């Protein structure tokens, strides 16, 4: 039975998703509907990153690679059979006859991402600090290179098109809620507590008997599963994409959301995703306005990226624990029961 504070946190975070969905529905504007859908998909990716990074304290750049695995897996298995020859002329014969529903394809994408993570990551989990960061970056490069060159199943660097459209606002929001539940449950699980302990003091974690690489590995595999599911949902939203969608730009956005919100908490992941989405869309509208009104002679481009980068720097300098701080929303003063007077403390 989860404790009261975790339940309050869950309720507040799910409410935040529900409000976003309500805003999109009530506005009736198609653009807002799409923005909130993408926000929910990003939330799944950010929560997945939080599961590993927030609890273990280790920065991972590989996350978006697993998003790509999920996206390509479901794209491959849900592509209508009659289109296979056109999209993937060199597809292996065994794969040319299987067609799954999008829901199954997305689930399979999560599983494949998790299995790849499980197989590749164990040696990396012994590393900490800079070595861990640089090897996770190397892993992203490896996954990207495979996506670019494995033409038989990815269509190489060219666009993979024809993925059935299946992800709407409600599907994305529903899975985002599951991701919130999953991230909170993991944080409070036995593995989650020990992983957070190892983040605070790895030597002391060894001393109580914790097998730190195994704990990290479990977090990493769950994290990759969530990234794979997020990637699959995105594939069925966007319907055509190329390997570049799963590289540095997306990595920066997802990391930025988590760092700005605060990686140590699930609350931080939600706050960061919503805050960055609002800022992003606001800036994009502003940029469009500047360009259509011809305020400057040339066109303004890249405003969103520059502002996000500056926000990240500002947060890291001024408030390293992120907007949400180091406590879950359910554990903040707002929800704290008045402390009972005790006579025990000297």
């Amino acid at each position, binding site marked *: *039975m989860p404790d009261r504070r975790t339940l309050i946190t869950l309720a507040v975070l799910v409410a935040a998703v529900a409000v976003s969905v309500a805003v999109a529905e009530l506005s009736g504007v198609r653009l807002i509907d799409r923005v909130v859908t993408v926000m929910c998909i990003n939330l799944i990716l950010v929560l997945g990153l939080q599961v590993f990074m927030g609890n273990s304290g280790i920065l991972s750049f590989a996350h978006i690679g697993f998003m790509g695995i999920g996206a390509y897996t479901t794209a491959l298995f849900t592509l209508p059979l009659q289109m296979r020859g056109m999209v993937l002329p060199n597809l292996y014969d065994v794969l040319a006859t299987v067609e799954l529903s999008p829901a199954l394809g997305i689930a399979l994408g999560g599983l494949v991402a998790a299995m790849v993570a499980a197989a590749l990551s164990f040696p990396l989990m012994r590393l900490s600090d800079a070595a861990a960061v640089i090897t996770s970056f190397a892993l992203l490069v490896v996954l990207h290179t495979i996506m670019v060159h494995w033409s038989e199943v990815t269509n190489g660097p060219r666009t993979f098109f024809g993925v059935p459209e299946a992800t709407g606002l409600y599907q994305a929001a529903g899975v985002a809620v599951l991701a919130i539940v999953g991230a909170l449950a993991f944080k409070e699980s036995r593995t989650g507590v020990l992983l957070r302990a190892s983040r605070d003091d790895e030597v002391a974690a060894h001393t109580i008997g914790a097998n730190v690489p195994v704990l990290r590995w479990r977090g990493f595999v769950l994290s990759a599963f969530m990234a794979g599911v997020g990637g699959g949902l995105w594939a069925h939203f966007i319907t055509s994409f190329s390997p570049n969608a799963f590289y540095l730009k997306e990595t920066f956005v997802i990391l930025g959301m988590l760092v700005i919100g605060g990686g140590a908490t699930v609350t931080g992941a939600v706050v960061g995703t919503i805050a960055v989405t609002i800022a992003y869309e606001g800036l994009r509208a502003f940029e469009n306005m500047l360009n259509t009104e011809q305020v400057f002679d040339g066109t303004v481009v890249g405003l969103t990226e520059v502002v996000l980068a500056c926000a990240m720097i500002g947060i890291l300098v001024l408030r390293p624990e992120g907007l949400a701080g180091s406590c879950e929303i359910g554990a903040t003063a707002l929800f704290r029961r008045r402390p009972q007077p005790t006579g025990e403390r000297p």
Partner: protein
Amino acid sequence: MTTASLTAADLSVEFSGLRALDRVSITLNTGEILGLIGPNGSGKTTLVNALTGHVRALEGTITCAGETITHLKPFQIARKGVARSFQIVRLFRNLTVLENVETAAIVRGASRPAARRRGLALLEDLGLAALAEEPAGALSYGDERRVEIARALAAEPRFLLLDEPAAGMNEAEGHALVAMLSALPAARNLGLLVIDHHMPLIMRLCQRLHVLASGRTIGEGDVETVRRLPAVIEAYLGVSAVEAADA
């Protein structure tokens, strides 16, 4: 209850040429309290680090209840029932006090609710119950040390090695600590090794002493014998300490 022991035989440790431990042999039995004393830099912490796998021994063997553990990793040695505290406290600072204690119970296989119950019972025993929900990073020095001991006990160890547990405590806290530690071996059937500088505290607490100087054993045995050994008096205690204890 059967007795078991944690032993090191002819243990040597070197740090880039410096011999921090030189063929030290030591035995800790369940049910007893052994004091490990010696001047600063004599190798006491290094001995605890070697026994718990945190530094590699150059030579010698370590056994726990008859099983050789010389080459095991720290987390494996912990799972054999050897727990410790650190000279400079190491808590999980962003976890609550209760969660800190829970971690060791979880590693031993407890579910979260069971770990919580065990943790609360231990905090109650050590007079820390009021701090259960506090973040461990916000404690006073003395409380930090007691939480670290509570966490070690939550693993239900057979051997508990405490590196200067009374450091930074005032006299009243020191007395309370001695009372608490004295009861542990019988109540929990464990062997307790305590490093401390403070001779009166060690004399009250321990049945046996092991004395190190410059990485070598210069005396061991029951308290009365050891504190009269000339080498010990010369190296560490000083004549005044013997007189003070006699008085």
